[in-house]
């Protein structure tokens, strides 16, 4: 029975399992993309921080115009900075996920060989320890 179960599993693993693993991997990238709101932050990248904006007073006042301009530039810069932090974090998380996912994918593809290899290596090592 055991060999039948093993071969059954192998059949599932290569016919269905690998594609399910790829889908799960894709889902995790999708999740990180949305979790760090990368698209939203990218779209509003140059907008002021929390929409905070100074308004120009009535009339022509150079000092006021300059003040408003500087303040709004600063607010936009702060907005960009904060968004950048989230975007960088998001990109970093995606890279980590890609790395871990790749390892797991390779492990899954090579699973039978890897398993056999690990079992053999384990036996060799155990023999070595006790000899």
């Amino acid at each position, binding site marked *: 029975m055991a060999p039948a179960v093993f071969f*059954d*599993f192998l059949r*599932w*693993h290569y016919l*269905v*399992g690998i594609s*399910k*693993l790829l889908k*799960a991997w894709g*889902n*995790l990238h*999708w*999740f990180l993309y*949305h*979790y*760090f*709101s990368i698209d*939203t*932050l990218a*779209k*509003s990248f140059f*907008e002021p*921080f*929390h*929409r*905070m904006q100074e308004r120009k007073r009535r009339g022509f006042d150079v000092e006021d115009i300059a003040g408003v301009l500087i303040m709004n530039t600063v607010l936009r810069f702060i*907005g960009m900075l*904060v*968004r950048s932090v*989230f975007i960088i*974090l998001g990109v970093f998380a995606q890279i980590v996920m890609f790395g871990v996912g790749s390892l797991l994918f390779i*492990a*899954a593809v090579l*699973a039978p060989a*890897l*398993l056999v290899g*690990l*079992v053999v*290596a*384990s036996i060799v*090592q*155990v023999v*070595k*320890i006790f000899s």
Partner: protein
Amino acid sequence: MSTVTVINSYPWLFRALRLDRIIAERVRVFIMTVSFWIVLFSGAAEIISSFFKVSALNGYDDLLLGVSFVSGAVALLFWLVEFFYRSNLVPAFVLEREGIQYTFSVETSRLLMNAEPSVLARDAIESLPIFQSFARLPLTDLLLVRLGIPREAFEIFLNAHAGGVSVLASEFFTKVCDRCDKERTQGIWVSDILAVLMDCDALWNKFLFDAKVTREDFVAAALWVEYQFSEETKRKRWWDRSQLGQISGLGKDLGFGYTYHLDMYSHEVWPGAMKYARETRRREIEALEQALSRSYEANVMLVGEEGSGKHAVLEGLSQKILEGSAPATLEFKRMVMLDYSSITAATKTKGDFEATMIKLLEEAVAAGNIILIIENFEGFLSSIASLGTDGLALLEPYAATARLQIIGLSDPTAYHRDLEPDGKVTKLFEKVDIEQPDANRLLMMVEDAALIIESRARKVFTFQAIKKSVALADRFIQDGAMPEKAIDLLESAASSVAVSKILIYPEDIESVVEKKTHIPTSKAESEERDKLLNMEQLLHERMIDQEEAIRSVSDALRRARSGLKGNNRPIGTFLFIGPTGVGKTETAKALAQVYFGDEEAMFRFDMSEYSQGDGVEKLIGSRDSKIPGVLASRLRERPFSLLLFDEFEKATREVHNIFLQILDEGFFSDGAGKRVSARETMIIMTSNAGANLIIELLRVQKDSAVIKQSIIDEIRTKNIFTPELLNRFDEIVLFKPLPKEELVKVAMLMLKGLTKKLAEQEIIFVPSEELAARVVEIGYDPIFGARPMRRAISDRVEQVIAKKILGGELKRGDTFQFASEDIKNL
């Protein structure tokens, strides 16, 4: 009907579930986790030892490597197995008929696979292995508790069920697919398998019957429990988008503004704990999304009765926004409930208030992601109107554009009365009605709430108790709307049952309703059953003669309490016709005493008071005056009572017309448009119409049926009552004038009443036949019947006794009887 074919006799789901029989899931997860950490630590130690030459690890290199290899192999193996297991925990396509494919749920597959792994390849289905497998299912214990079936009783059934039955597989699965087609679903649940077994296995059917579990209850409870388990199973595949999507993200609000001031006068609407809210209120949530997604005037007036679930709809939308499954136009929106009473309390003048409101609205607009919710919208308008502010004019500049979305909450009465007439409201706000959910959705909502109450009160509701709460709340609780009325009953039951008692049964719900409404909701108990069976005898303790009338009324009541009466009409509706003083009112009083246990349960309406144009208004209330009607108030205070409408013919035709609906459907709408139920009420109307004709006919005709028909014809011909009204009574009861010999008995009954009054003063009064005959002689009037006899007793008999008490002739402890001489002198 074509046959069912098995398209996959051993789906991957079956193979995955088989793993549970080899190693339990929790053991697998434990081994996987432990081996993962071991490989991590041993691997790290090996690397440190190799590269950094740590002296403490010298000599352990081989051991660390060995541990890494072994634990690595175990971790990899169990990871692959667990991924295989969890990936396959999804319903599997198994059967096909006429091009339609049917799926087995995870628990159905577990049930059948554990019964017999090759069940789908067999020609016959055996019931016993399925029951044995059912006994081991993870959901079974909870299901048995929900159904109020002790586990021991189920074990006894299993042990007694030697052999079971065998059914042809094709026949069995055809029945299962038939059930699915009937329910318009392609998913086969545990309940479907066990319900079909009820048709095949008489013992299983008998077991549930003995446990007082109906097929409908079993199926509904099993579905509910399995649904909870399927949610748990879904969570195991945490990498699915449906699960990952439920986690809210970071930095989503960075693109939107702060709302310092608005936050001071509002609170956020977060997703509620009700899991089914979205399912059960899908239509309303979608309507809300659609209206809020418009490019301008994207405002909604959510209209529903208090307790109908307006907040559940808002919470459902909030959940969708948070998950990111709402339309793109609503992405990242914040739903904020305005606390306008705090604003009015904090501001003293119109100017202050308007300035604050404008500041808040501007802030909401500037933030760019606010959906402003105003509860009790008509109350908001009237409250700020008292400050002199026109609320709609204030909101219009914001509500008319896409700058801000507003959701107003209102109830139907207030909406029609205060908001609808204002064109601005209908122009700016799209109305979304909270509909009364159908029975299934209602049950789901209450089940949902029951789980929350259970976790708080540490009690468990049986399914029948939940179902009972829905039925009784709908029928007996007058105020509020469903599902809140039913949820309130569950709350009350959870807090009223003893702390030591964990399970809450339907009887507990009944007792809560009885306490709240004074209506005996439980089935006729033995005492009441005796009362109903001996109704004629009990009524005759107070009533003399009128055999036919008493029999008619008793028959109608027995029909009502035995469950033969539909629930959609009053308990009984009678028209008592006959001359005055023949016992019509007395019969009503006797009925109140016997049936409702108290004469006070009778409320008498003198219909001559409703003979003017304002009769209807006085009875049901008026929207303009806001004064509640007498009938509406009485029914709300005491729905389980007897209403006596004396001399009904004197009321206006408009009043008569109101009773067409009450007699037929058991409810009416009061002046404010709210529904008032009279379904637990006995309604008796009396009329003297045709009294003279009765007396005349009785002289020449003895057959009561003929006399009654003649009277009804007379009433109809003279248009005293319309045929529509007459046809709606359960019974038209004819009261005949009492012959003189019967009147002596009536006088005796009246004198016994006097005996009771004197007994309170500890004086024993012994009335005699002679005295009763004298009362009849003094008081009898062929036109006024027995009524003047009561006056005769008070004017003559009581007068004599009063003088004796005041004169000291009669004292406490004395026994008094009228002497013949005294009787003659009366």
